[in-house]
């Protein structure tokens, strides 16, 4: 079984996918099982690593369906103060300085394998779950904001306001730091998709693909194998779970 648990990183990716490509007939059953919902009383499994592949060619400038969907799913309200308002996911517009070509893409927590936020957190409130999701444990976050200093993607927001009307599946509150949690409540309930990816598909774009990076049979692994996926700030060697193509 060991060889199927090879983690996705730049060095091993090509090697392992060829290897698995050869031997993928027999273990197909095993991976089928993984794709099913996990029992509610079972902890998240380290055999899985959730990730995303974002196709910037499919992402358009005037669409913000992913952002709206995220806000709605997690009950993120706007206080009309842009500098302190929470943004778990944001649309980024890029213009190539050399060619002038412009690109659009959603930016959020990249769910690194070696996350700087987890390294710097004094209380261990920032942590990486067994299935690769980087989370803030709001029960132990003291609101020091050192993780926000350390994040290379500015993925985190600090809750600057008193909140009311939180949604039950996404508790949020003043004084803690928070960020994209890959819709962990949906994953735990076996939906295995995120609000942003669903909204993107519903809107007719196919820009966000969510799936298990450790399963070579999953759509995301197949597409990664076929088109590749770029890591933002790959110079930091963080091995992100959110990858981009077309840029």
């Amino acid at each position, binding site marked *: 079984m060991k060889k199927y648990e090879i983690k996705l990183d730049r060095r091993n990716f090509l090697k392992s996918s060829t290897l698995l490509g050869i031997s993928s007939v027999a273990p197909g059953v095993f991976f089928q099982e993984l794709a099913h919902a996990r029992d509610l009383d079972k902890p998240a499994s380290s055999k899985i690593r959730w990730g995303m592949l974002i196709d910037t060619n499919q992402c358009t400038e005037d669409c913000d369906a992913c952002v709206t969907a995220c806000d709605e799913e997690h009950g993120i309200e706007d206080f009309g103060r842009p500098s302190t308002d929470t943004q778990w996911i944001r649309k980024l517009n890029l213009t190539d300085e050399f060619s002038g070509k412009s690109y659009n893409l959603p930016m959020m927590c990249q769910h690194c394998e070696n996350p700087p936020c987890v390294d710097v957190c004094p209380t261990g409130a920032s942590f990486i779950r067994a299935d690769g999701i980087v989370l803030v444990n709001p*029960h132990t976050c003291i609101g020091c904001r050192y993780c926000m200093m350390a994040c290379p993607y500015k993925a985190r927001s600090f809750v600057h306001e008193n909140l009311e009307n939180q*949604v*039950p599946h996404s508790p949020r509150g003043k004084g803690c730091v928070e960020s994209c949690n890959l819709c962990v409540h949906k994953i735990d309930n076996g939906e295995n998709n995120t609000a942003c990816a669903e909204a993107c598909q519903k809107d007719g774009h196919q820009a966000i693909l969510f799936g298990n990076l450790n399963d070579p049979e999953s759509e995301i692994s197949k597409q990664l194998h076929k088109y590749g996926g770029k890591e933002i700030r790959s110079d930091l060697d963080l091995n992100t779970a959110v990858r981009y193509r077309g840029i």
Partner: protein
Amino acid sequence: MYKKLVIKTLLTFLLVSFSGASITHENIPHNIDTSLADKCVEPTEIMRAQHHIFINQQGHDTVVKGIRTTKYSLKNCINCHIKPLADGSYPNIKSKEHFCSGCHIEAAAQVECFDCHASKPFKKIVIKK
């Protein structure tokens, strides 16, 4: 002379701060429907004494491990215990009509759960943008 004064002040302070201990779960009026008392996940006596332990443990397991069993989940508590008022709205966490606050305000024990967690059953809200 100063020493005596300091000691007296300290003793008074200690007495005042521990006087809250005389309020127990038994002598606080519970705004609970007694006919449903045994429908809870554990017997009433155990829930009164240990609900925070169950909830804290469940909170840890859910956040850190991703375990989503409903038995001890706060969501489960709220869904069952928070009933709409006469006008159909849910009681505010700051009022004594709220199941949790009923005792916690009386005992002057702060609940920090609802700084982040929803204090009423889920109803889809429309986000004002």
